């Protein structure tokens, strides 16, 4: 048990606990706030795994933008503050499939990796990722910008009733 292992275990426990609360809590706004805790713990896991740039991008985009958008959606759909009794559907099939997927994958990974130890590489930096991104992955990067533009135009068209399909 090294220090990195202890950190990974603690942050992983926080992430899984907050994730479980996101999908079980009765209150909509609290689900969004638990999501912040979960995503923050995952950013900490990235830091321990020496993926520094991904960790900060996670904090900026997920915690800063995606969660805020989700909270906007919660408010714009006039969600009640406090408990909402009608958030859930019958839980048995969901618990079977979700628990089966989660525990099955966990058992698979545990069996594949057992107690193998890997030395962590040195601390990562943005320069290495940027060099790799613009050397080997330029085309996907550019395609991604087209996809973002398409998503932007699509979101505008969907959300404006006067320019959607009316015929």
């Amino acid at each position, binding site marked *: 048990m090294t220090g990195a292992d202890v950190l990974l275990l603690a942050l992983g426990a926080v992430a899984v606990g907050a*994730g479980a609360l996101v999908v079980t809590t009765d209150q909509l706004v609290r689900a969004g706030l638990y999501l912040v805790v979960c995503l923050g713990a995952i950013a900490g*896991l990235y830091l321990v795994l020496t993926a520094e740039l*991904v960790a900060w991008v996670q904090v900026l985009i997920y915690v800063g933008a995606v969660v805020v958008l989700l909270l906007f959606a919660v408010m714009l759909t006039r969600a009640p503050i406090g408990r909402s009794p009608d958030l859930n*559907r019958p839980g048995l099939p969901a618990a079977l499939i979700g628990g089966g997927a*989660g525990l099955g994958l966990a058992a698979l990974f545990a069996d594949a990796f057992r107690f193998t130890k890997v030395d962590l590489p040195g601390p990562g930096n943005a320069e290495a990722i940027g060099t790799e991104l613009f050397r080997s992955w330029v085309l996907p990067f550019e395609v991604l910008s087209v996809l973002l533009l398409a998503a932007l135009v699509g979101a505008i068209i969907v959300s404006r009733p006067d320019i959607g399909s009316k015929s």
Partner: protein
Amino acid sequence: MRPVIPYVVAALLFGAGVYGVLRRRNAVLVLMAVELMLNAVNLILVTADTTVRATLPHGGQVFALFVIVLAAAEVGVGLAIVLQLYRLRSSVAVDTVRLDAAPASELDEPRMVAHER
């Protein structure tokens, strides 16, 4: 560092996301559960990048960045669709959406459909 720890954490997060997508009625909560699943996959990508010697260095982290961008785009479009659904139905419960109904008839009488439940 034992790679089994982040892998198992990612698997459990993915299971929680699947459970949430199947369990929740509110469309916003379904989107949140989808975010959990995307994050589980990202965690696997970053862990694999750290623990596996690959031909192209840092491919996993680059893929994780791509997935984060895709998730941002997905949430933007998803939010637009959820708000349009709320405008039509005054409700975002995903299991009351009738897939066989024509959209034109919903535009005519949104209130009636909304209180049907």
